[in-house]
């Protein structure tokens, strides 16, 4: 014990620096360590902000809000699938074969228009993409979200480092870890050819397609648990007021103009393909009593079609006039369709089918509305009621 104390007293760490020396030390001693840390983080660069990986295989994070920066900056793609979960299953490989160009899927799960605008802004600032495939989810929503790591997509390169200044990446960089939490999944380069963010093959998802009985099997799933309750209350509920709110229209159109049409207008060399994701008919039927209002949707879609008419570099595709949305077996929940719809969308773009124009939009919306009205919800409501013991 005495020995230890003696050693400590003689140790360099116990050297008295004096008060002034201490203050200077506190401010200066960490500097070399910070510089070394910054150099190490620059070289390690797990998200590929600065360069492609050195001394390790190419990997990407599944969170495309983070990964999109590296993919768009360091890889040689010229066409982008930029949707939400509605386009996450769209195969870049299929797109390449059907539409030409070097496609990659950088869809941001659950993203709003303003979040995707951040990526578009970055993309058009650094290159001239030939084609962009974009899904118009929740068209009448003015909801914005700010989950993007903005520092990765702004003009400043210095604050890019701030993305790495946290315990997770600092600890990972010390050992140049190849763990998926540090650098992303290991087979992601191969999956980039198709879609890194593809979810259709996941274990808990496959089983939910195929029919309503499969939904029942997963009745406690986050995406389904409220559906049965809503279904059981459908009959007893009165229809929601259906009217166009002018103020909302102005807000919706402003949101779309700012976050979508601006890019179409400014980048005439790029071909934009917009798709309206065909949510299940059941979704629209329930919405008539519990959700958004259909007249607003019709009005917004008609306006969007007329706006797109001004730009020869943009086309809109719609699939809600098909019987596809009537079949619950095509859906894992109220909105997410099977991968065959993603293929159908690519086919439509290739073949020039299902295009919505000012000439056919009225007929399209009429067909869609009549299909919603005719949709028979009763058998499903009955099952839901039995299930809930009502």
């Amino acid at each position, binding site marked *: 014990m005495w020995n230890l104390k003696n050693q400590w007293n003689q140790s360099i760490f116990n050297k*008295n620096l004096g008060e002034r020396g*201490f203050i200077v030390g506190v401010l200066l001693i960490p500097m070399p*360590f*910070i510089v070394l840390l910054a150099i190490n983080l620059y070289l390690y660069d797990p998200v590929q902000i600065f360069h492609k990986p050195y001394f390790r295989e190419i990997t990407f994070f599944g969170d495309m809000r983070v990964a999109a920066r590296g993919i768009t900056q360091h890889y040689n793609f010229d066409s982008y699938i930029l949707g939400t979960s509605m386009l996450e299953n769209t195969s870049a490989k299929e797109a390449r074969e059907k539409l030409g160009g070097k496609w990659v899927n950088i869809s941001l799960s659950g993203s709003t228009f303003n979040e995707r605008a951040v990526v578009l802004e970055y993309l058009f600032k650094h290159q001239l993409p030939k084609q962009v495939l974009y899904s118009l989810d929740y068209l009448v929503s003015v909801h914005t979200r700010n989950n993007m790591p903005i520092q990765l997509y702004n003009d400043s390169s210095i604050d890019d480092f701030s993305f790495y200044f946290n315990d997770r990446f600092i600890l990972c960089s010390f050992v140049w870890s190849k763990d998926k939490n540090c650098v992303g999944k290991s087979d992601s380069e191969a999956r980039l050819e198709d879609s890194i963010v593809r979810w259709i093959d996941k274990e808990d998802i496959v089983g939910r397609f195929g029919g309503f009985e499969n939904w029942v099997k997963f009745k406690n799933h986050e995406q389904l648990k409220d559906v049965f309750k809503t279904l059981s209350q459908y009959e007893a509920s009165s229809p929601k007021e259906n009217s166009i709110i002018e103020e909302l229209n102005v807000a919706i159109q402003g949101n779309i103009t700012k976050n979508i049409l601006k890019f179409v207008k400014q980048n005439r060399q790029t071909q934009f393909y917009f798709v309206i994701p065909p949510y299940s008919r059941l979704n629209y039927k329930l919405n008539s009593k519990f959700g958004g209002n259909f007249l607003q949707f019709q009005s917004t879609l008609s306006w969007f079609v007329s706006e797109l008419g001004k730009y020869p570099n943009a086309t809109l595709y719609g699939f809600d006039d098909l019987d596809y949305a009537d079949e619950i077996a095509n859906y894992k929940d109220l909105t997410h369709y099977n991968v065959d719809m993603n293929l159908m969308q690519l086919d439509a773009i290739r073949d020039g089918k299902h295009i919505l124009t000012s000439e056919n939009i009225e007929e399209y919306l009429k067909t869609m509305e009549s299909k919603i009205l005719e949709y028979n919800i009763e058998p499903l409501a009955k099952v839901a009621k039995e299930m809930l013991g009502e």
Partner: protein
Amino acid sequence: MSGGGGQNNDLFIESPLSSLANDSFSLSNPNPFNPASSKIHKLNPKFFLILGIVFNLALLGFFKYTDFFLENFNAFSKILSLDFAIPLPHILLPLAISFFTFQQIAFLVDCYRRVDTQDLQEERKALNFLDYCLFVCFFPQLIAGPIVHHKEMMPQFHTLFARIGSFAVWGHCAKGIFIFSLGLFKKVVIADSFAKWANAGFAVVEQGGNLNIAESWATSLSYTFQLYFDFSGYCDMAIGLGLFFGIMLPINFNSPYKSLNISEFWRKWHITLGRFLKDYLYIPLGGNQNKKYQDSKFYAILNKVFTLRNLFIVAFLSGIWHGAGFGFIVWGSLHGLAMCVHRIYGFILERFQLQSARFLKSKVYQVLCWFVTFNFLNCTWIFFRSENMQGAINLLKGMFGIVWVEMPQKIRAPLLLANIEGRNDTLIYLALAFIVCLCFSNSIKKLEQFSPNLLNALFTGVLFCYSILMLASTSYTEFIYFNF
């Protein structure tokens, strides 16, 4: 002065001015130091004391509780079918009002009682307005405490200029940067990490959702540690900033989560608030003496009953002081009850002369005491934090399995804590927080043992720089006590 968002800084200036007017009256009757006092020295000083206290409390009540009062008045009138529906004014809270109100009341009372006023009178003919303003507005501790007393601040202000240029300035600065870095690290790295999980968990329960048992405990413990590291971090930073100016602020924390009973907890948590409430509320109420009844033949019983009443009132008002909301009322009441239960337990031990029983000194008993105290604190913080009562009750139901949410099949942290965005880090942070709170000495002890050696320079430099780097990479999270 930068502070909590949405606070009204302009209003801050009114209170010291008006309070000083009252303070002058109080000191001046009969005040040998104030020549201007001749015209007013015949006025009743008690009147001015009451006026000053009422004015300060009225300001606090107006700014802090108007919305709460009107909201409940509207709800009550609706029940009586009167439905006044008075619109809520949403008054902005003046910066630091809860803190400077207490400091000014203490100042008024001491001037009236003529206790601890030597610091005001020394070599002075009249109260110096600038000194007074500095005492109330001293920015390091202004926004969230510690609640300082003039007897510990004024003498330091008087000698401040005499000390400039002396060698002690560097010593203070070295100590200041040491404890400031500790505080910054506690806030930015530890408290803000816990804040992510606590906020996510409370957001779920406040919106009517339920969490599984692991998420519920992780949420409540995260908040328990967030609050501690946030507030004690702030106080360390305040002490550090004070030291840069050569001013030593009072200690506000003394390892409170090591407490073995609720009474000890309140002697160690937010010490300056406890000191204020003891000196200016508990003792004036009678404290544990209640001499008003000493002539009664039932004095022994009456004294015990009134001591319990006094304890409850102090804890209850402490709850209300923290904010306008039923959560704070419940939190204060529970702490009041706990103080009473603890005191009754003491009475019982005393009655049966068990204070020196062997079991009460055993390790097992002490661990049991700590376990009960810590869990009581952990559960009551839920009411303190939750924005609505439903959230607090939902979280408690989840913690004790009253509402059982299915657990994932694979017991892995990210799945188990999915609703609070928890990962393995959550468990590691919780384990480390327990170790730090229970096994290490606190920052004040570290400051006392401070020596400007190389190891401390390295340690301080790493904490400081790491905290600054974290600050640069995360979004701004306000100090919790800015809201009070």
